[in-house]
């Protein structure tokens, strides 16, 4: 009797396993990453180890920043709750391996979009959430006000594993200046060494300089030089090979930017459902079936705007109000003299 029962259970178990496999593979065809994320109940997001304005954790472990908001937007879209994100702080060196090995599903860590990164190492950049450029910080007391005053023998502190290291060489070579590169693995150590006087200048993306300046023992003693020596479009990255997931992340970011363009904010999003403008109605899910293309419901974009806010809100909250870069510069909408321009959501 027991013998048969045992056989029966194993048969049932096999059928169940087989069944789950078939349903799984059908969903997997859509997006394996999306399916895994929904199963886990949180978005796995790689961020920096602490860059104010972009991704920074407070004492209670709450992450804030415009890079953080991209992950929160994706969580709002696919899970319905912007707080369902697991953040993994990564050094510049670790970030791509963490993404390609599947430890995280989105890398939103002030990462520069370059050809070799996009094409070579199994990554896909989905957009730009901050237009940046490399600059130099020096001590005010040094009297240096322009990079043209740099002289042979200058020592420059920076991070390893960044485009900064390459730009720095291009810059100093083109000027014919001999320099001493001092490259650390972590940003905190770069700041500490520069602050101690180990280096004459600290070079990285200008937004990073502005943010790190707030961490110095006396921020007023340092200035960021006006010159920008490179272009650094920073944006979220996903693994190659899951185009649906790639689209979800891309359009979560685009939704935030387009929402600002149409004046939809976290406060007025619900009211916008009755707007006369079909573009606005599509963004808040009152018209069209935009979510279906990703396998999401129609309120995905509304949730992003309500829970995270539009790009302008995110920028103001994280970068302008914190005093890091009050002037939006190129990161203003194209309609207002900036270069933020996203394809239409329709």
């Amino acid at each position, binding site marked *: 009797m027991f013998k048969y029962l045992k056989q029966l259970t194993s048969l049932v178990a096999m059928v169940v396993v087989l069944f789950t496999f078939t349903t799984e593979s059908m969903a997997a065809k859509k997006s394996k990453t999306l399916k895994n994320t929904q199963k886990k109940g949180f978005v796995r997001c790689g961020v920096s180890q602490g860059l104010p304005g972009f991704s920074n954790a407070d004492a209670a472990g709450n992450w804030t920043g415009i890079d953080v908001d991209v992950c929160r937007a994706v969580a709002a879209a696919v899970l319905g709750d912007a707080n369902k994100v697991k953040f993994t702080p990564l050094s510049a060196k670790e970030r791509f391996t963490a993404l*390609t090995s599947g430890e995280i599903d989105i890398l939103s860590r002030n990462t520069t979009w370059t050809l070799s990164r996009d094409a070579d190492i*199994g990554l896909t950049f989905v957009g730009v959430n901050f237009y940046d450029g490399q600059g130099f910080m020096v001590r005010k007391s040094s009297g240096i006000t322009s990079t043209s005053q740099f002289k042979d*023998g200058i020592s420059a502190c920076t991070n390893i594993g*960044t485009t900064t290291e390459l730009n720095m060489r291009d810059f100093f070579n083109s000027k014919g200046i001999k320099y001493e590169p001092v490259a650390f*693995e972590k940003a905190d150590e770069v700041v500490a*060494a520069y602050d*101690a006087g180990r280096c004459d200048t600290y070079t990285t993306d200008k937004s990073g300089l502005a943010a790190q300046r707030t961490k110095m023992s006396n921020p007023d003693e340092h200035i960021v030089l006006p010159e920008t020596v490179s272009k650094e479009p920073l944006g979220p990255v996903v693994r190659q090979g899951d185009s649906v997931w790639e689209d979800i992340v891309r359009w979560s970011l685009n939704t935030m930017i387009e929402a600002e363009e149409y004046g939809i904010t976290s406060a007025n999003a619900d009211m916008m459902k009755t707007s006369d403008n079909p573009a606005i109605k599509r963004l808040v899910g009152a018209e069209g079936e935009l979510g279906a293309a990703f396998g999401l419901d129609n309120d995905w974009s509304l949730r992003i705007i309500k829970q995270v806010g539009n790009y302008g809100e995110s920028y103001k909250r994280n970068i302008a109000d914190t005093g890091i870069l009050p002037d939006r510069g190129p990161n203003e909408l194209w309609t207002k003299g900036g270069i933020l321009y996203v394809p239409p959501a329709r």
Partner: protein
Amino acid sequence: MNFKLKDIVPQLITVTAVVLVFGFFTYNAQINMENRGIDFGYGFLSQESSFDVQFSLIEYDGSHSYFRAYLVGLLNTILVSVIGIIIATILGVIVGVARLSPNYLINKFAAFYVEFFRNIPLLLQIFFWYFAALRALPLPQDAEAIFGVFFLTIKGLYVPAFIWQNFSVFFYSIVAAIIAIIVIRIHAKRVQENQGKQIPVFLISIGLIFILPLLSFLIGGVGISFEVPVLKQLATTSFIYEGGVSLPPELIALTLSLSLYTATFIAECVRAGIQGVGKGQKEAAASIGLTPNQVLKLVIMPQALRIIIPPTTNQYLNLTKNSSLAAAIAYPDLVLVFAGTALMQTGKAIEIVSITMFTYLTLSISISLLMNWYNKKIAIQEK
């Protein structure tokens, strides 16, 4: 042939299992890399690296290849390991002997040093020497000259560079001195074995190693001059020293922390080795009329070394491997330059990590083989 099937089957199964596991990992990595569009290959080694390195023993800049960047990192790792091993050994032997000193103060001081440095994590010590000690150093313009020519500043230690005339003559004089010493030693041994007479080999050797190079200065036309570092202003409050040789603070902090940390373990090995030689050995040696020096040199040390060498080899290996913590304080070692920057720029994670692992393995095995050879040489020659 006299082997049984049951002896060989477990071994075969183990080997097969190992091969299968490795095969699975390789296959898995291959599939995943293919899915994500990552190429595998070592071709990148000949490409231009396009990044600069702070400190290099060979000529290097960004226009050289990734392979050369690898060599730069490797040589820097070897440099810090070799200096570290030498300092740690000298310090370790002194402290180890000091711990056995009958002098209460010396004894307790050595014990305190060992317990203190051995029980603090190495990374913390590196941070201490780099960040805490570095901050205490003066800026270049405020630095006081040590002996008028050395400058210890926050940007590094600046020492005068030697400028030689007829360096080859000086070099040959040293080689000649070493050869002469070896010949005298062999001769002295023969004299002692045949006639029982002792020649003061040590004094003669010291004399030779000083006198021959000195002669090269006096009559060989060897000259030496110093290039003293000179302060140079870059901006109102920004200075460096030019000329001479500059040792970056990263190298100093790393060497210091590695040697101070490892010396504690070597000191314990030395103490164990000396204590491991029976007291009777010393007494017996003294009773046949050997001087205290001879007791130490001919009886105690040969036996103590046999106890000291194997655990000390481990410490040398540890020091070499620990040098990879350099990345934390920007010393451009193999891990920072190759497994750091180069890995990031190329994205060739599997290739670079495997090369780096293989390199450390080779370094460790080389040290191990060298020490094993030395250990065998000083082992008891059973006849």
